[in-house]
């Protein structure tokens, strides 16, 4: 064996040793951290819910200082993957789990925790009044079948507003998001055409892109900036974002035929409309509700937990106590409303708490009185 191959062998050996050492070290550290700091609870997922979850985990420090919660907005997809792989204690998701994901995660359960509204924002030259839209018009605009602002369908909803003869640029989210899922869910409810040809998801194939009149913006701020910079454009953002940035948003005519403005109250009305129609998995869409004051473009964000395979019972109790506090405490509700979200109305909350009461740890119920 000559010198060169000899040293190469040594190198390979060293590299292999380093790699294997890294592997074992990582495993060891993760298992010790789980057992030694049991009060550290890790969650991640939906960015839609991030502002509220961050606020809640921070506020909860003063309620129960011994519990540390940590929530990261890595996206619903990442959250679902994390809870299935058992790398998270809880996950946040705007999208519901698929049948395969339920099978892979074995004992997963979804719980709605909050609802958020999505609002249309616009920038039309020469129009300062608050615009009124309805579902058919909104779907028509994003379907590229309504292409001018002075279209008779829009004019009929806005008497007294002088709408220009200008082409509509439709702005949508370029990044996958729960906001888009809620918005496209609503468009699917408004228009059978949309439901058949486009559908609803965190990102979809926009007909306006095909028609050449669509623009994608990244995040709420990207959409808002594109609408602000593009004359005669329309877009959609979360109500919380519009409130925080003082952006004027359009009113909608809801299913009952009434003009409604997005707010915590109209959001709660939408939730009440569908309180009796939850699936066994406790999921539901709340778009286009029939109530007199229901905001039509709304959606739940969910918490995902393992219902029977949690083994650290102190941690499980801390986790459920936190979410019980979040769902019932008036301070938590007020903070959520300030951020433009709405907590669950009574009719929904009782069902969610009842389901949380079914969670067991090593065979015993975790919440004593849900």
């Amino acid at each position, binding site marked *: 064996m000559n010198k060169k191959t000899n*040293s*190469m062998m*040594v*190198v*390979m050996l*060293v*590299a292999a040793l*380093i*790699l294997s050492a890294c592997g074992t070290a990582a495993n060891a550290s993760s298992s010790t951290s789980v057992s030694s700091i049991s009060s550290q609870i890790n969650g991640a997922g939906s*960015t839609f819910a991030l502002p509220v979850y961050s606020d809640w985990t921070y506020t909860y420090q003063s309620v129960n200082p011994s519990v540390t919660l940590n929530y990261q907005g*890595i*996206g*619903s*997809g*990442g959250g*679902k993957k994390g809870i299935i792989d058992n790398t998270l204690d809880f996950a946040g998701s705007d*999208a519901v789990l*698929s049948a*395969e994901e339920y099978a892979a995660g074995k004992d997963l359960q979804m719980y709605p925790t909050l609802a958020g509204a999505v609002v249309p924002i616009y920038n039309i030259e020469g129009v300062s009044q608050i615009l009124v839209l309805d579902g058919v018009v909104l779907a028509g605009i994003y379907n590229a079948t309504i292409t001018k602002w002075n279209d008779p369908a829009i004019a009929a909803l806005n008497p007294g507003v002088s709408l220009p003869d200008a082409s509509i*640029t439709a702005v949508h989210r*370029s*990044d*996958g*998001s*729960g906001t888009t899922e809620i918005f496209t869910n609503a468009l699917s409810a408004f228009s059978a055409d949309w439901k058949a040809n*486009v*559908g*609803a*998801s*965190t*990102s*979809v*194939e*926009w007909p306006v*892109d*095909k*028609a*050449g009149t*669509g*623009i*994608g*913006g*990244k995040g709420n701020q*990207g959409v808002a*900036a*594109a609408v602000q*910079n*593009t*004359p*005669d*454009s329309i877009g959609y953002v979360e109500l919380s974002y519009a409130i925080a940035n003082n952006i004027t948003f359009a009113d909608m005519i809801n299913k009952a035929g009434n003009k409604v403005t997005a707010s915590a109250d109209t959001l709660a009305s939408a939730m009440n409309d569908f309180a009796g129609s939850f699936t066994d998995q406790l999921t539901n869409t709340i778009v286009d509700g029939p109530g007199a004051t229901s905001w039509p473009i709304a959606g739940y964000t969910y918490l995902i937990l393992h219902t029977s395979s949690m083994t650290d019972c102190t941690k499980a109790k801390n986790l459920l106590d936190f979410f019980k506090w979040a769902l019932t405490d008036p301070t938590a509700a007020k903070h959520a409303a300030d951020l433009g979200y709405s907590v669950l109305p009574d009719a929904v909350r009782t069902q969610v708490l009842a389901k949380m009461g079914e969670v067991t740890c090593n065979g015993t119920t975790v919440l004593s009185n849900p």
Partner: protein
Amino acid sequence: MERSKSVVNRRQTAAWLKRIRLLLHYGDRPWNVLTIGMAVLVILLMLSIGILLWVDSGQARSILGLGFLKPTSNASWNPVSGNFQAWPFIYGTLATSLVSLILAVPISLGVAVFLAELCPEWLRLPLGWLFELLAAIPSVVYGLWGIFVFLPGVVEPVGSFLSSTLGSVPGLSLFFHGPIPGSGASLLAASLVLSIMITPTIAAIARDVFLAVPVTQREASLALGATRWETIWKVLIPYGLSGILGAVILGLGRALGETMAVTMVVGNSTGGSLSLMRPGYTMSSIIANEFAEAVTVLHSQALIEIGLILFIMTLVLNILARLLVWRVGRGMPKEARA
């Protein structure tokens, strides 16, 4: 007793010192092993990234097949129905990188020649610093500046002008037909922002290449009666050609992979128009945009496959560029090769 103990101690210390000295003296071997190990680690890392991308996109590759890569004017990217074609993103990445290179290379060479040859001595250093500072600006800042200043102020008027002139020329109209959106977000905007971002990279390296040209070469040329312009054009640039090509490759690498600034200005439309005036999409942008919230397996795998294509594309382009540099460098004196 006391005394003998201290003697033993002293002897032990001396023995230790000797051992350390020996280790340092014969340190070549361990040092070699260490450096080779580091080099091997880099190769392993590269391989593992490639393998990971290949394995994690397996399902998408078998379901979507070669149709995923097919150039088509009516490409589909539909997460709801699970229909994915990557052509608009491949086109967007290639088009924006190419156009930005075409714009940036002459400008950077001009800057480099000025800094290395024509600039007064006292201005050289501060100007060089300023230019290097441009390269240090985070890309998200370029994106923000693009959205609020550059796009409405420069790109939109330029785009309107181009689409109204070149947009009706047969042949060119395919790449220049308008209208450009009012916000300016388009493939053109991405190309222009990219060209600004890669100019300092190319210019800084090209300047160093010019500065490395031996003074004797310049003096010889001038002594033969060449003008300054002839010296630059016929001596400096041919002498440094392989180094300049290397600089261009680095710029291309940055343009291909740039994500944040491009995502913010490219318009993010999967419409798949070939025109530079229309909103488009790039490979890195679609991954950055959709990966976090890709809820179906096929969707995330299709995104990973795009990552794989980008990985292979960068690799192939780099190899081709290396070959080019090598070919050009063969006819050069040894110290001029990059």
